[in-house]
């Protein structure tokens, strides 16, 4: 198993944290992981990228991910700005935070989850921004099984405390259960 994932988000939405948590979840399953941001100047609100590799053997490479197996889109408005399927392998998976069914190329498997509503429902808002990253990890697990729901819940519980942890866990589970395949 060797999977490369690209996260599209906006600065402040937690794409980098999502990639890091995914690696922590992989470690729980005795897998290996690597997570990294796009190495530039990060600005709040601007389109940003984060990357992750998950493997069942140690990862030697450190170069960029150019042809991901999976793309996770944290913000539906990015679809108009960025070619989110750029370099995506044929038959690859796209997991999108969206209320609607977006039009993405026929050659991909597309999953949709309304992570913004879930984040708002569980009051996961910082500086006016719905934090959808934990919900999107639930959706990613549901769509691909790259790491299990249990592992994601357990790293979320370790990363936050008390009520915030509880609300994030609820968001992860609700997103996991409501993710649907649209293509």
């Amino acid at each position, binding site marked *: 198993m060797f999977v490369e994932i690209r996260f599209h988000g906006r600065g402040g939405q937690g794409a980098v944290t999502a990639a890091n948590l995914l690696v922590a979840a992989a470690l729980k399953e005795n897998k290996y992981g690597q997570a990294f941001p796009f190495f530039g100047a990060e600005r709040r609100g601007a389109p940003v990228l984060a990357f992750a590799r998950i493997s069942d053997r140690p990862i030697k490479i450190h170069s960029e991910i*150019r042809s991901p197996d999976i793309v996770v889109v944290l913000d539906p408005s990015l679809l108009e700005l960025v070619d989110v399927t750029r370099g995506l392998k044929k038959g690859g998976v796209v997991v999108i935070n969206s209320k609607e069914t977006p039009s993405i190329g026929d050659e991909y498997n597309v999953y949709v989850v309304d992570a913004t509503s879930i984040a708002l429902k569980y009051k996961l808002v910082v500086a006016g921004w719905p934090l959808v990253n934990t919900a999107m990890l639930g959706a990613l697990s549901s769509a691909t099984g790259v790491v299990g729901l249990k592992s994601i819940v357990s790293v979320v519980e370790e990363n936050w405390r008390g009520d915030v942890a509880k609300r994030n866990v609820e968001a992860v589970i609700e997103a996991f259960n409501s993710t649907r395949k649209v293509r």
Partner: protein
Amino acid sequence: MVVLPLTGNYAVAWAVKRARVKVIAAYPITPQTTIVEKLSEMVENGELDAKMIRVESEHSALAAVYGAAIAGARAFTATSSHGLLYMHEVLWWVSASRVPLVMAIVTRAIGPPWNIWTDHSDLLDQRDTGWIISMAESNQEAFDLTLQAFKITEDDRVNLPMIVGLDAFILSHTTAPVDVLEQEDVDRWLPERKQLYVIDPNNRFSLGNIASPKDYMMFRYDIEKAMDNARRVILEVDREYGKVFGREYGGLVECYKCSDAKYTVVAMGAWAGDAKEAIDILRDNGYAVGVLRIRFIRPLPVNEILNYLSGMKGVIVLDRSVSFGAGGQLFTEVSSILASRGRPPAMKGVIAGLGGVDVSYSEIKDIVLKFINEVEDQGWFIKRQEWFMPYEYSFKDYG
């Protein structure tokens, strides 16, 4: 074993904590900043009993930890790029005072034009300063080297400072699993700090005074001897660490499938991992290739390079830096060693990845394959150098 998902920078901070460093001084510069940010957090919340000294520049940062080190404290600093260049003068003060001190360098290109991404120019600019200079391939190795650096530098055969290098972003800001060991195991392994002398107000002596030409040259000869001793000490510490903690890297170099190889790639830093991946693919296609990873550029692994590479049909050296007018520094040094004994292998130097240009394992595979074909088609040649740019620069439209 305590495995945590850590960035390369946090891995270094954890090693500093495990070594129970007493004094830290640093000035922020991307991409080093998160090392000392994490350390100051550890000091603030009581995890690390150390003094953080705030300074106004990198020159002062190294001067401050130099003062702490000659006063007998285990000390640490970190920097990158222009910060390191600004420190340059003080590097000589520390090594020529024969004082153990550890510094992390998150390698970053030098401006202008302004660039925050990795290459090895800043690190290799310090080659001649009398510091031991190492370079990590992974976050785990950044942790292990930083911890080992305290034992190596404080060995009474060495008494020289040491740099631990790690690539900007591709290690420094990349999260990967790191075994940070148990504190009590590290305490058992790493002895109390030892050093040649300690500044003591009750026992006054003069340091850094003017020396006659003859005395000066003797001081320099002593540094050279200590550097030579460091070769043995680095190997001993690596072996002992392997026995105690289960990770042994090979000393000054790491040989990856190079013992039965006809062609070998020489590289240093994180992209050596990509070179290993490339070599695995080439081996699957029937090519006898290997990687010789340079872990220490000072002291230079002269015997290792001769032993592993003399009998090769071809040696290709990847440089992530350039000495303008001479070529890649690794290539210059490796090829001069190989040319000192009989007929050397066919040798090629490739300069690539400057200023953070991404070079993938599949591009390294193509670079190596091209070299093999050149040697097989044209026969032996002594030295050839070229620059490599990737075929497409894939993410220029993003972010």
